[in-house]
């Protein structure tokens, strides 16, 4: 198999990896906690793409049974990702509640300012 065929066939995995790595970069590099949480949700969402890509069959249809269709995509990853989306919003909203609480105590959501004011409180 040629390199180009390989690239075209795996391009969704490369995009998945790019999204994942950007999320990781945002989580580590940015000191602002809300931006960190956006990065975390980017990372989570890229995992959805990683799970749903192999489930697809070209020429298939959504797994809702009907006499007119024979080929269906794999339903199991869809179920797992449905669960993951809901758990994802639960973690993100808990994180946001912690950020709001931090703002009430420290008056800022910048990591540097929180660390530097840690001795005073």
């Amino acid at each position, binding site marked *: 198999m040629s390199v180009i065929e390989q690239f*075209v*066939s795996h*391009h*969704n*995995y*490369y*995009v998945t*990896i*790019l*999204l*994942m*790595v*950007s999320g*990781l*970069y*945002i989580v*580590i*590099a940015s*000191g*602002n906690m*809300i*931006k960190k*949480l*956006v990065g975390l*949700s980017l990372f989570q*969402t890229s995992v*959805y*793409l990683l799970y*749903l*890509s*192999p*489930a*697809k*069959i*070209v020429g*298939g*249809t*959504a797994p*809702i*049974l*009907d006499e007119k269709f024979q080929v*269906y*995509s794999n*339903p199991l*990853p*869809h179920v797992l*990702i449905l*669960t993951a989306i*809901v758990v994802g*919003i639960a*973690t*993100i*909203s*808990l994180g*946001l*509640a912690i950020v*709001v*609480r931090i*703002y009430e105590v420290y008056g800022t*959501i910048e990591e540097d300012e929180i660390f530097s004011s840690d001795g005073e409180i």
Partner: protein
Amino acid sequence: MEAYILMALLLLLTIVTIAIVFQRSLFAVVILAGIYSFLMATAMIVLDAVDVAMTEAAVGAGVATVFFLASLHLTRAREYPRPRAVWLPLFVAGVVGAALIGGTYDLPLFGSAASPIHQHIAPHYLNESMGETGVPNVVTAVLADYRSIDTLGETTVIFTAGIGIMVLLRGRRRRRGEDKDDVDPGARET
């Protein structure tokens, strides 16, 4: 045809992601994250995951954006300074990305019905779920019947997160009241 639509959507996703990385206004970041979720939901429809796409559009693009905007309002956050150390995160992200790209090398081809994921348990669900559960939507049948304990666990996670948020934000109104009329702060603590 499906592959080209997917390619275009993934290209748009890439552009939005790069914009999120470089954008420093928090409001713009949150709105871009909402756009990202909508694009992701559209890509999910192309990947035949219609139930997931609906959930992602409602939860990822709707509820999550509202939550982010609410906490932007509560924390009065507008913009944030440029990160100090860029090289360490770039290095970590680069190493992780290289390892993952190495891992894609022997993955099966996209959209092939012969790949291992379609051989083991999916045919059972597709062939038997109508007789065993009577639900035409296989995703619903698996979610609410075969893996219902899993779904119960998911509900427990949401319940726990809800309790956590309530505990964290419970004292907000009371504390704000103390700031306004600072008459006898000690008495209210007890």
